[in-house]
C-alpha cells in the first residue's frame, strides 16, 4: 500500500487548486434552473474549457487531456472543496462524449464532440419516462422511420437540464414487436426541433431542476442514430458503464458535511450531548469507511479493472450515507431547521435545505437504492432473479 501521489499528480492538484481559487465565482451563480442562471453556468463551462479542464479523461485526439482516473478524482475533490458551481455539461462530458467515442461514426464525433467539450452544446439524457423508471426497458416513446428521418412521438421525464439544454441523447422504441430490449434505439435529438415541448418541473425544494419533454411528430435525421437501429440497449449499457467507471462521489463531500455538523452542534450548544455526539461520530466513521472504499475502488480502476456491478455498492454506500447525514443535520438543527435566522452562526438555511433535499433525491436518481440492492444481490452475490 502506498497512498502518496506522484509528482505529476501533485502538480496537477496544485494547478487545479490555484485555478479554482482564482476563478470560482465568489458569489454563487444564480440557479441553473433559470434561463439567466443556466447561461451563467454555461459561461463557467466555457471558462473551464479554455483553462483545459474539460474532458479530463478523454483521449487527446478528441480534445481531452488523456488523464487517468486518479487525476479525475483529484479534480473532483478540489472542485468540491473550492465550492465550484454545478456542472451543467456533466451528462455530455461523462456520458454522451465517451459513448460517441465508442459507437459514433467519424461524422457524428466531429459534429458533436467539440460542442460537448466547449459547453456550446449542453446535453440532457432522455431515458426515463412516466411508465419507465426503474424498469427502463418498458419505455414507449416511439420512433418510426420515414425516408431519411425518424419521426418521434412520446414523452421523457425527470430530464435534468431539459428546460435549457440544446440536445438530448434518448432511448426510443423502433420495433414494438421485438422483445423489450431488442426494439430500442439510441438517438441524438436536437431539442430545438419542431414538435419538442419542454415543461419544467418544480422540485419539492422549489428549484426548477428537471423537466418533462414531449415529442409530437419530431423529425430526427436517421443519421443521428448512435450505433445500430434496434441495438440501443447495448449502447445505453455502455453509457451507464461510463457512469460507473467514473470516480465515486468524492469522499471529501461527506467528510466536509460531518465537520459542518460538528460546527453546528457547537453552535447549538449540543456538543455535550452524548446521544448526538455518538451519532455524529457514527456519521464520521461512515464517511471514513466510504473514503477507504473509494480509494480501493480508485486503485482498481487505475489498474484497468472493470468495476461493473460493484459500482452499485458504491452508489448505495454514498447515497444512503448522505441520507443519514441529512437526517442527523435536521436533528442537530432542531426546530431551527425550519427557519431562516439571519446572523445565525449556522450556515445559511438555503445550503442546509438544498443539501438535505438533495440527499433525499440521491437515493432515487441514477438507479434507486432498491434497484442498486437488486444489482448487488444478483450480480455481486449471485442470488437468483426474482
Amino acid at each position: 500500500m502506498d497512498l502518496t501521489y506522484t509528482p505529476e499528480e501533485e502538480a496537477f492538484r496544485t494547478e487545479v487548486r490555484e485555478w479554482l481559487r482564482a476563478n470560482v465565482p465568489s458569489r454563487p451563480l444564480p440557479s441553473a434552473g433559470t434561463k439567466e442562471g443556466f447561461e451563467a453556468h454555461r459561461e463557467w463551462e466555457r471558462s473551464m474549457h479554455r483553462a483545459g479542464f474539460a474532458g479530463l479523461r478523454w483521449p487527446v485526439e478528441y480534445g481531452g487531456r488523456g488523464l487517468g482516473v486518479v487525476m479525475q478524482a483529484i479534480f473532483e475533490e478540489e472542485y468540491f472543496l473550492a465550492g465550484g458551481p454545478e456542472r451543467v455539461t456533466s451528462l455530455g462530458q461523462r456520458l454522451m462524449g465517451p459513448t460517441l467515442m465508442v459507437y459514433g461514426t467519424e461524422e457524428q464525433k466531429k459534429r458533436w464532440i467539440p460542442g460537448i467539450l466547449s459547453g456550446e452544446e449542453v446535453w440532457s439524457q432522455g431515458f426515463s419516462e412516466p411508465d419507465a423508471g426503474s424498469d427502463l426497458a418498458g419505455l414507449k416513446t416511439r420512433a418510426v422511420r420515414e425516408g431519411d428521418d425518424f419521426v418521434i412521438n412520446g414523452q421523457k421525464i425527470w430530464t435534468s437540464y431539459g428546460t435549457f439544454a440544446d440536445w438530448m441523447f434518448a432511448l426510443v422504441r423502433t420495433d414494438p414487436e421485438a422483445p423489450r430490449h431488442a426494439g430500442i434505439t439510441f438517438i441524438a435529438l436536437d431539442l430545438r426541433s419542431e414538435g419538442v415541448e419542454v415543461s419544467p418541473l418544480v422540485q419539492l425544494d422549489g428549484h426548477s431542476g428537471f423537466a418533462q419533454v414531449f415529442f409530437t411528430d419530431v423529425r430526427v435525421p436517421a443519421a443521428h442514430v448512435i450505433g445500430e437501429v434496434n441495438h440501443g440497449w447495448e449502447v445505453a449499457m455502455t453509457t451507464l458503464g461510463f457512469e460507473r467507471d467514473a470516480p465515486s462521489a468524492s469522499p471529501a463531500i461527506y467528510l466536509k458535511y460531518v465537520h459542518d455538523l460538528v460546527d453546528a452542534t457547537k453552535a447549538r450548544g449540543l456538543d455535550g450531548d452524548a446521544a448526538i455526539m455518538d451519532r455524529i461520530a457514527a456519521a464520521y466513521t461512515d464517511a471514513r469507511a466510504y473514503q477507504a472504499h473509494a480509494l480501493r475502488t480508485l486503485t482498481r480502476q487505475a489498474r484497468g479493472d472493470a468495476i461493473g456491478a460493484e459500482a452499485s455498492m458504491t452508489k448505495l454506500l454514498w447515497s444512503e450515507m448522505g441520507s443519514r447525514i441529512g437526517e442527523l443535520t435536521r436533528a442537530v438543527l432542531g426546530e431551527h431547521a425550519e427557519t431562516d435566522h439571519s446572523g445565525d452562526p449556522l450556515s445559511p438555511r438555503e445550503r442546509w435545505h438544498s443539501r438535505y433535499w438533495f440527499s433525499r433525491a440521491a437515493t432515487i436518481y441514477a438507479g434507486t437504492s432498491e434497484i442498486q440492492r437488486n444489482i448487488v444481490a444478483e450480480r455481486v452475490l449471485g442470488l437468483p432473479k426474482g
Partner: protein
Amino acid sequence: MQFAFTAEQDALRELARDLFEKESPPSRVRELFDGGERDAGVWRAIAGVGLAGLAIPESLGGTGGDEVDVAVVMEEAGRAALPEPLLETAAIVAPVLRDAAADDDRAGSWLSQIAAGEAIATALLGDAPFAVDAEIVDLLLLERDGELHLLERGAFTTEAVESEDRARRLFTVTAEVSLATKLPGGRAAADRARLRAAVAAAGMLNGIAVRLVEMTTSYVRDRAQFGRPVGSFQAVKHRLADVHSAVESSRAATWYAAFALASGAADASLSASVAKAQATESEAAANHAALQLHGGIGFTWEHDLHLWLKRGKALEQSYGSAIDHRRVIARALLDGSVDA
C-alpha cells in the same frame, strides 16, 4: 496511489486461509465448544509457516511484516473462527515486545520463542475483565495504571470463567506488578497496544462477517419456499446487499487503519477507532442477517453458524466497543484535532 495488497500479501492471505481450513476446520472449533482439549499441533503449524512471528524481525526468526500483513491474517482468522490466541500473540504482544526490544532485555528472547512457536501470549488491556487463554500462555501482557507489564507464566494466577463462545476461553487474572515487570514506553506504548488490538479485532470481525455473508448467501440460494429459492425474494436480497456493502467498506476502513499504523500516519489513532467501530457495526448487521435468514436451522447447536455468531458477539465488545470508539472519535472531532 496504491490502496491494494501486494502480491506477497495476497499469497499470505492464501497461505493463512489454507492453513486454517486444514488445521482448524469448523469440526475442530466445535470440539472445543463441546469441551474438547486443545491441540498444540495447531499452534505449531501456525508458527511453522511464520504466522506467529508475522510482526517479528527476521533477525529474531520472524517474517518481518507490519500491521498490514497482520490485518490480512486477522481477516482469515476471523473467517475460520480460529480458536487460538493469534490476535493476542501476533498482533498485540509481539509488536509491543518489538517496540520494547531496544530497552528491555527480556523482549528479544521472547520474540524468538514466539516466532519459533515455543511461546504463546495473551493480553489484558485497559479495563478488560478477562484474558483469552490465560491459563495456557507463557506470557501475559498487562496494562495497569497506564503502563504495560510483562509477566511470565507462574507470575500470575488465573481462574476460568465460562464464556459463551466456548472456543474462546476466558480467564480472570490475578497479578502483582513491579518495576521488574514493567515494560518501557509508558502510556504511549499502552495506547499503541490498544490501537493495534482494536485494528486486529476489526480485521477478525470483518473476516467473521465475510464468512457469515458467504454462508447465508449460499443457504438462501438453496433453500426453497413457495416453490422458489428464498434468495430470489427482494426482502432477502436487499438485506444481504446492504450487509455486504457495509462489510466491504469496513474491510477497506480496517486496511486503511492498519496502513496508518504501519506508516506512522498522523491519523493512525483515529483510524483505528473508525475501523473497530465500523467493523463492529457491520459484523453485528451480518450476524443478525445470518441468523434471521437461516431461520430455525441457524438456531440449532448442530448447525455451524453459531460458531461465527458467538465469536462475532464476543469480539464486538472486545478491545473497545463501537460506542467506546465513537466516544473517542467524538472527542477528537470536538477538540478540532481532526482535519476537515
